[in-house]
Each structure stands twice: as C-alpha cells, then as structure tokens.
C-alpha cells in the first residue's frame, strides 16, 4: 500500500489525467496531484518497499532514507511550484511531459538499485528532449537533437558500467563505489558526470536549456543536474578529482557568463557554476561538505527556478530574451523585478537568503580542511555569480536604458509560483535550522550567522558592486554567440550523423534498385526460359509467345489432373 504513495507514481497518475482533461479540471487536478506528491514525500516512512525480483537481482523501487527523503522533498516541491507556473498553458502534452520528467527524476531518487536508476535516467532523457522541443522553434529542434546525442552517449556509458558491474558478479544495489576500483565504476562516474554538466561535457546545458519552452526551462533546471549530484553524493563521496572538477566548473560558468547576451543562457551558465559547488562538496567528502552539497542543491533548485521564472516572465511578456534588446522593465514589471531580485540575492549568497546558508557550508568545508585553492576558486565564482545574476542581468533588463518595451500582462499563476519560490528562498535564509535538520548527515553542525561570516560576505558583495559600477558600460552584452567545448564535436557529430544517414539512405537506394533489376531479369527469364538456352531469340513477348486461351485451359486441366493423381497416390484416398 505504501508503494502507492511513491511520489513518482502520483505524478504519473497526474500526468495521465492532465493528458485527457482540459480547462479548469486539468488545472485543479495538476495542483492537487503535485501537492499530493509533495505530501507523500514528507510522509513516506524510512525503509525499502516495492522490492521485485528480476533475473536473480532484487530491485528496490522505493528506498526512503535521509538522502532520498531530502531530495524527494525538494523535487516534489519544485514540481508543485513549476506546475503552478505553467498552469495557463493549454498544451496537455507539455503538462504530461513535465510531470513524467519529474517522475523520472523521482524514480532515480528513490531507487535502491542501478537498474531502476537507469530506467528513471532514460525516462528523464526522453522527456527532457520533448520539453526542449516544446520551445517550438527550429533552434529548439536542433538543440534538442544535439542534447539527445549527448545524453544517449551518457546513458550508454552509465548502462555499460551497470552491465559490467552485473557481469563481474557485483550487486546492483545502489551503494558507494570507488572510481579507482575498476572500469565499471569509471564508466558509471563518466555517465553521471555527463548529466552533472561537468566541463568539458557541459555545453549541452547552455545549448539546450535556453531554447526550451518557458516552463520547460524551469523544470529542466531542477532535475537533470541535481539527480546527477544526488548520485554523486550517494555513490562517489570523497573522490578528490571531483573536488577540483567542481571548483573549476564553478569558475568556468561564471567566466563564460560574462560574454553572454541571452538572459536564459546566462542563467544556464550559472547552473553549471552552482552545480560546481555541489560537485566540489561531494569531492571533499567530509560530513560538512556533503551536507553542503545537498543543502546547496536544495536552495539552488528553488532560486534558480525563481530566476528562470523571472527570465521566462520577461520573455513571455516582451517576446525578447537578449540583454541588447531589453531594458527599463522595472517600471512596467515591478512585481517580477522584485521577485527576480529575491532569487538574485539568494544565488549571490546575500545574508538572510537561501544561498547564504547553503553555499557557505561548502566554502567553509574547503577552508576547514585546508583546501586553500579550492576555497579561493569558489570565492571567485561567488563574485561572478553576484556580478551576473545580481548586477548585470537585473541592471540591463530591469533598470538599464529604457527601450520603450510594452510588456503584456502575465497570467496570475506565473506570479503566484514566483512568489512561492521567493518565500521559500527567504524562509530558508531566515530559518536555516529547518533545512539543516533534514540534511543527510545529521551529526555535522554548522552556524551560518557568525559575525565574521556575515561581515566578509557583505565586503565581498560591496567590492563586487563597486567594480561592476566602474565597468558597467562594457558589460551591456553584444549580439554575439560564445564558442564553447561543443565547438569541438558539434561539426564532426553533425557530419557523422549526416553521412551516416545519407550513407544508409544511399545504400538502401542501391539495394532497392539492384534487387529490382535482378527481379526484372529473373521475371523475363521465367517468362521465356528458352531465351537463356538460345540467346539469339527474343525475350518474352506477349503477342508472340503467349499460348492461345484454349491451350492454356488444357494445360491447366492436365496439371490439375496430375495433381489429383499425385494426391491420390500419396494418400491412398
């Protein structure tokens, strides 16, 4: 019975209902169902349920422990908020896809074995592709194709690792692995890192997320990278290479965001940067750092959703998404501006906002354990985060030169959803105890509001603000694109796919023509076999070689009698 409370099942039921209903009935059912999934995530008791036997392996469909409970809570919460944000959408298919995507993520979170993880993983890949395609543009369609190439590769790596683990007689239970112990764990780690968007395999994120539908981007930002972080926490804590990869990733995202003109792409670079903090925390592996990774995933899902909802609201109301085309919207969209700024304060780690109480766990863990370089890299990334999401984007979108835009009125549900996310960001920032009490490692304690910590954060923010104000004119965005690591494989993969497709098509065409030619020759030969024996004679010609109708009837009658005689001889009837 408890298995029926699996939040993924609740969302799948809601998705099915959304696909067959319309209007108010669909809206009410979506809100109630996602709320039910959130309540289920709160209420589920610890333990394994839904255990099924498959080819000698016990698959656990629902494992509830502190880690899965923590991620389950935020995943269902953002499914609820994101659903409210998209309530005005009339496409049942989009609602269906969003909820199945969230259900895929929850399948991974609550899985107790690798096969169930893989099933959820692939469900996410397919449904996230559909969310990108719901962007509805040629660019979205092409970005979706590139996205799925990468994720099929990542999924193949993951599956190869799982298969090797299975073949080597290992248990498929989801437990800690060491990447140095064998090829299987290395392949699994590689597959997970693709979804975590760790450079150099990160460009799919900044390529595809900004092209998805307005609501789709909000969902995408919450689940794919965070399920990867969840798996890293569960399977690879303390892998030192991850600490360095994460620290570099944090700065990388912040650095590339400087050159970005598209507001949703700029925010996507900051997903990479913020996930970098989490990956670094997992790599450090201490109780404080792992708690930091989980806590930061929790607050990141909320504030990044809020920021993308703000950017989506701007796109929805003005039809524009580039810094060079935006400006002066604070007057016409004061509510969105204020709510966006709450998200900006949260991601920037301003005291009393959620990012302050989660990010500092990771930076403090680096500091306490003497990882000086990592600590400084994370501090520089923090500077970059405030620079872009807290200063550059709001300045040029909401406060910069007024471009005379006339935004349309937003559906009320979009603002309500942003309000909920903003309230959560402030709630966590003001009362961090609620978040800390639910962290995966309960024995690690942390006090974020120490005098020196608040003071140093304020200094960092003021220093960044002063530098921004000095050079702000050079940050206004330019109508350009930034080359990223996808440059290395984009053209070769395109050519490979093109030649593969055209090669297969050409081979098929030749095969078809070849078989037709052979069939034609065989047919001619069968029509007049003497033509083979006497090459000089004409091939079959109906007027010349066809027997008269009477002769044909005689031959048929003779054949029939012969057949009857043969049957009579054989059967004795």
């Amino acid at each position, binding site marked *: 019975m408890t298995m029926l409370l699996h939040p993924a099942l609740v969302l799948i039921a809601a998705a099915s209902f959304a696909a067959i209903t319309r209007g108010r009935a669909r809206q009410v059912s979506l809100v109630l169902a996602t709320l039910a999934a959130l309540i289920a995530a709160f209420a589920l008791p610890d333990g394994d349920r839904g255990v099924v036997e498959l080819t000698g392996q016990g698959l656990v469909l629902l494992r509830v422990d502190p880690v899965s409970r923590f991620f389950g809570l935020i995943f269902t919460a953002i499914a609820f908020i994101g659903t409210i944000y998209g309530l005005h959408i009339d496409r049942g298919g989009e609602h269906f896809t969003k909820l199945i995507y969230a259900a895929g993520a929850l399948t991974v979170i609550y899985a107790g074995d690798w096969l169930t993880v893989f099933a959820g993983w692939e469900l996410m890949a397919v449904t996230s592709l559909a969310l990108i395609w719901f962007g509805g543009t*040629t*660019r979205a369609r*092409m970005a979706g*194709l*590139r996205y799925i190439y990468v994720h099929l590769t990542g999924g193949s790596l993951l599956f190869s690792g799982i298969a090797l683990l299975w073949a080597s007689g290992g248990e498929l239970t989801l437990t800690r692995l060491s990447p140095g112990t064998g090829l299987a764990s290395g392949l699994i780690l590689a597959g997970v890192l693709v979804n975590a968007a760790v450079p150099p395999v990160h460009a799919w994120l900044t390529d595809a997320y900004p092209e998805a539908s307005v609501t789709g981007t909000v969902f995408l930002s919450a689940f794919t990278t965070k399920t990867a972080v969840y798996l890293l926490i569960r399977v690879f804590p303390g892998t030192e290479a991850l600490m360095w990869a994460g620290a570099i990733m944090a700065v990388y995202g*912040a*650095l*590339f965001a*400087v*050159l970005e003109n598209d507001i949703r792409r700029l925010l996507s670079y900051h997903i990479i940067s913020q996930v970098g903090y989490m990956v670094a925390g997992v790599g450090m592996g201490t109780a404080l750092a792992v708690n930091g990774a989980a806590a930061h995933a929790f607050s990141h899902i909320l504030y990044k959703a809020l920021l993308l909802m703000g950017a989506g609201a701007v796109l929805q109301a003005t039809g524009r998404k580039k810094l060079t085309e935006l400006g002066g919207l604070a007057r016409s969209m004061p509510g969105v501006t204020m709510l966006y700024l709450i998200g900006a304060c949260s991601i920037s780690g301003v005291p009393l906002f959620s990012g302050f109480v989660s990010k500092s766990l990771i930076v*403090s863990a680096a*500091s*306490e354990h003497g990882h*000086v370089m990592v*600590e400084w890299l994370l*501090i*520089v990334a923090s*500077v*970059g985060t405030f*620079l872009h999401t807290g200063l550059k984007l709001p300045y040029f979108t909401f406060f910069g030169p007024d471009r005379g835009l006339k935004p349309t009125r937003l559906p009320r549900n979009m603002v309500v959803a942003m309000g909920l996310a903003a309230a959560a960001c402030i709630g966590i920032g003001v009362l961090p105890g609620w978040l800390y009490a639910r962290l995966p490692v309960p024995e690690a304690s942390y006090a974020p509001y*120490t*005098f*020196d*910590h608040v*003071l*140093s*954060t*304020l*200094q*960092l*923010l*003021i*220093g*960044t*603000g*002063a*530098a*921004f*104000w*000095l*050079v702000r004119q*050079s*940050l206004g965005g*330019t*109508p*350009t*694109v*930034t*080359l*990223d690591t996808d440059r290395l494989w*984009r053209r070769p993969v*395109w050519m490979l*796919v093109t030649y593969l497709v055209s090669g297969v098509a050409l081979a098929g065409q030749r095969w078809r023509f070849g078989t037709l030619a052979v069939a034609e020759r065989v047919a001619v030969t069968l029509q007049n076999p003497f033509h083979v024996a006497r090459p000089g004679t004409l091939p079959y010609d109906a007027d010349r070689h066809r027997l008269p109708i009477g002769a044909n009837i005689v031959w048929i009658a003779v054949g029939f009698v012969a057949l009857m005689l043969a049957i009579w001889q054989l059967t004795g009837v």
Partner: protein
Amino acid sequence: MTTRQVFGVMTVCTVGLIAIEIAIVQEVHGGWWHRVAGLDLLAGFTGCLALIWGAKALGRLGLQRSEHEYPETEP
C-alpha cells in the same frame, strides 16, 4: 543614482564594515588571510575585474563570434 552617489554609499559601507571588523570581530574561522581587515572587499573588487577582463580577453581571442556562427538548421 550618479556614480558619485553610488561610490559615496559604498565608501560609507566599506569604512563601516572594516571598522566593525577591526573593532568587534574576535573570532575568525578559516585561514590567516581571513584576519586581514578588508581582504574580502579587495577580493570582491579584484575578482570581479579579473573575471570581466579574463572573459573579454577570451572573447577577443576568438570565443566571441557573430550570432550567425552556427546555421539555425544545423543539428
């Protein structure tokens, strides 16, 4: 706000924060550099400029291209 006003407010905040740091903060967590008054302020200022100039330099080296660098229909 004019640049003068912005920097006026920032200067007041900066002086205030550094004064509080020197006068009141007794316990500092982490490495010795956290005890240097105003270091975080400097880190924010220089870190921000370094990121901007670093990224701009990369852009000039060829990372920043025309919006039509990739054909729209290229998968």
